[in-house]
């Protein structure tokens, strides 16, 4: 079956440092990967959509300078939160879209705690 693994599951980082998270698709080809953030007590905000061999599309309020994304092949994507501060706390979800374009599979998320 189709699975999406995210790691690390949880990271505690000091304010002003950076954190890289990874997303691995298993059992299918992830032609696109959507990265989301769920801040404490809030809903899931779309950060960006990354499609292999295409430009990464960032949503308003999110930038490549802050959240650089790499999507080198059909099974792997990574995103870094640069210079993390308190407002960057939350659960970061990776959603991988299969080649049919119809199904979005989510990982369990990477939780970022900033101290």
């Amino acid at each position, binding site marked *: 079956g189709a699975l999406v693994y995210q790691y690390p599951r949880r990271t505690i980082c000091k304010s002003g440092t950076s954190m890289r998270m990874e997303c691995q698709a298993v059992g299918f080809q992830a032609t*696109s990967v*959507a990265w*989301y953030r769920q801040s404490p007590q*809030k*809903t*899931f*905000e*779309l950060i960006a*959509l990354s499609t292999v061999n295409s430009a990464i599309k960032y949503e308003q309020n999110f930038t490549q300078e802050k959240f650089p994304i790499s999507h080198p092949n059909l099974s792997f994507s990574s995103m870094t939160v640069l210079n993390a501060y308190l407002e960057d706390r939350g*659960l970061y*979800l990776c*959603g991988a*879209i299969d080649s049919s*374009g*119809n*199904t*979005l599979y*989510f*990982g*369990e*998320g990477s939780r970022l705690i900033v101290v």
Partner: protein
Amino acid sequence: AQSVTQPDARVTVSEGASLQLRCKYSYSGTPYLFWYVQYPRQGLQLLLKYYSGDPVVQGVNGFEAEFSKSNSSFHLRKASVHWSDSAVYFCALSMPNYNVLYFGSGTKLTVEP
């Protein structure tokens, strides 16, 4: 622009009672619609989805939802809730040919014994 509204931030029901969680959407065409559940300290699990056809879709664990184009709604229902259904439920929308999900604000469901 597309959007999803879940008007009830919190819903409390007794175990064994019926449930409806409301979801309204805004989109000029016919969207794809989804319900996800998030248990404490976990990610998202898909309950059900609607693409087209029969407006009533069945999901896991006895959940169903009904799409209404005239009301721009996709309410989630369950005939008899269990305490283990306590969680946060998210309604989401995607546009055909652009399968990125846009989420509502979520409804926290508490099932009392």
